[in-house]
């Protein structure tokens, strides 16, 4: 606005200097913003290029062979799917209901502020501390042993804040007038929530759930000590490869062991594993974003 006004008046040295300053500031800040995009593109591009020789459908479906130096990543892929869905099955209901409580029931009371604080801190606890907790609570104290159950419970608690935060946002965006209308026809609070609030925010909740999936799929530290193994024999294409009391391989863990422990791996294989993990996570996130953009465009209030 201010720069266009300078054209209408005669340019003075001051206004010229200001215009220069403005342009400079714009370029610097723009450069800083671009400096964040460039690494993303470079990293994705570079990883993809290095991974190219190994990327194929059969890489996904094959099992690792010859001491994990060849073959594919099927067992790790299946393991990650197990961990993600099991943790989702635990954290989605708890997270959604917790958000319902925080948004629909809780008043501005010290105890509820405490809950808010707890949610924020839960999100800030380092992943390795979650791992310690999972080891102490699920593996040892609850006697689940090193197993998929322990690992996914640890993941579930770790990703709970993601679901709570986005569900709350979704619930909060339902206008209060909707609720009032419902109360006015005599519905109770829960009936209102079930019939009006939840259906109208389901898409936002879904976004949160999707984000939880992406977060859970990428985590390594919490599962490293609770239920992820270096290797497990799995048949090619066998989807029911793991029992819940067993341990499993996982993509993130597989990438870590491939790059630090397995000698003589074909060079493109760790890169391809990284690309699959990154691709899956980014794809899931992009889905969540697309869903959100679409719904925001469709929203009528």
């Amino acid at each position, binding site marked *: 606005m201010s720069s266009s006004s300078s054209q209408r008046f005669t340019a003075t040295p001051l206004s010229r200097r200001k215009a220069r300053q403005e342009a400079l500031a714009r370029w610097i800040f723009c450069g800083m913003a671009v400096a964040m995009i460039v690494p993303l593109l470079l990293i994705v591009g570079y990883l993809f290029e290095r991974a190219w020789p190994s990327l194929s459908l059969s890489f996904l479906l094959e099992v690792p062979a010859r001491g994990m130096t060849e073959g594919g990543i099927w067992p790790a892929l299946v393991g990650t799917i197990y961990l993600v869905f099991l943790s989702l099955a635990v954290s989605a209901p708890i997270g959604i209901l917790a958000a319902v409580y925080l948004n629909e029931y809780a008043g501005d009371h010290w105890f509820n502020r405490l809950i808010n604080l707890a949610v924020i801190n839960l999100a800030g606890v380092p992943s390795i501390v979650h791992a310690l907790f999972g080891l102490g609570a699920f593996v040892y104290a609850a006697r689940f042993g090193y197993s*998929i159950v322990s690992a996914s419970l640890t993941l579930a608690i770790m990703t709970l804040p993601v679901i709570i935060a986005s569900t709350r946002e979704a619930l909060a965006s339902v206008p209060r007038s*909707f609720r009032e209308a419902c109360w006015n026809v005599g519905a109770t609070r829960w009936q209102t929530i079930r019939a009006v609030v939840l*259906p*109208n925010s389901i898409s936002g909740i879904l976004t949160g759930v999707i984000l939880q999936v992406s977060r859970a799929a990428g985590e390594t530290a919490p599962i490293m000590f609770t239920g992820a193994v270096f290797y497990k024999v799995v048949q090619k294409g066998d989807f*029911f490869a793991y029992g819940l009391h067993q341990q499993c391989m996982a993509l993130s863990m597989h990438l870590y*062991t491939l790059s630090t422990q397995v000698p003589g791996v074909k060079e493109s294989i760790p890169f391809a594993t990284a690309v699959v993990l990154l691709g899956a996570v980014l794809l899931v996130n992009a889905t969540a974003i697309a869903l959100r953009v679409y719904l925001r465009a469709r929203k009528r209030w």
Partner: protein
Amino acid sequence: MIDRVRCSSSLAPRLSLLGVALTACLFWAGCGGGSGGAGRVTIQNKGSDTMVNLAQAWAEAYRQVAPEVDVEVSGGGSGQGIAALIRGTIDLASCSRDMKPEEIDQAKKNTGKEPREFIVGYDALAIYVHKDNPLEEITFTQLAGIYAEDGQLTKWSELGVKLPGTADDTIVRVSRQSSSGTYEFFREHVLADKDFKLGSRDMNGSKEVVELVASTLTAIGYSGMGYATPAVKMLRVRSQPGQPAVAPSVENALNKSYPVSRSLLLYTLGEPAGPLQEYLSWIRSDAGQRIVEETGYVPLAPADRAP
């Protein structure tokens, strides 16, 4: 707006139904114990990072021998393998050091069973340097000078080595994280129980050690000889001034002339039976020992093998 509310209100139950179905599906898969259900046997093997690739290769090959047996392999270190064995949560602990007496006591107290030891191969701990490093052999004294807490060796020139193409003379020490079996073995046999000098790069896997040495001209590191690559050089090692310098190799490890070689061990709780016993004797048979050799370790002498 009312319309919208109506029609979408049926969405929530449907979605939750889907969720329940999905969970049920997973649980069904879980309780079935994985593919095939009751006929399957799982052997859990945990422990030494040195042996994890070997254990993996066994597990992979054993699939062809006994398709009904699933072997789970995890690393983590000898210490963790033993700890898990003491708790009775695993079937096989792989170990690159002997079980300590107090660990054996603990296992007996906890599970009521005596741990049983099986030697399944040998490993020579090789001293690695970059392939362009002119150094060919090294003594225990020099190694202690480089690695031990009171050691004074910090420069390659103090070893009489002139590295080609670099002015940088400082020795980059590459080590393992404390309490890995390899770390403890090196401390016990090379440093004579003296502690390590702090500040070494402590890698988390044997492969990382070799890779770092391979990419760093000024580095020295130690790791199982199975991890050797063309980009690194294994030094001949002299334990005493009068002794000959011996190169790490299968023969030298077998005839014990290489001074830093050790047994690779598997522990079970009590006398193994059933599939576990079959797996162990397969490992100690010619077929299993061939894999030991292929992975870069030293197999048992033919006389010690299982029939």
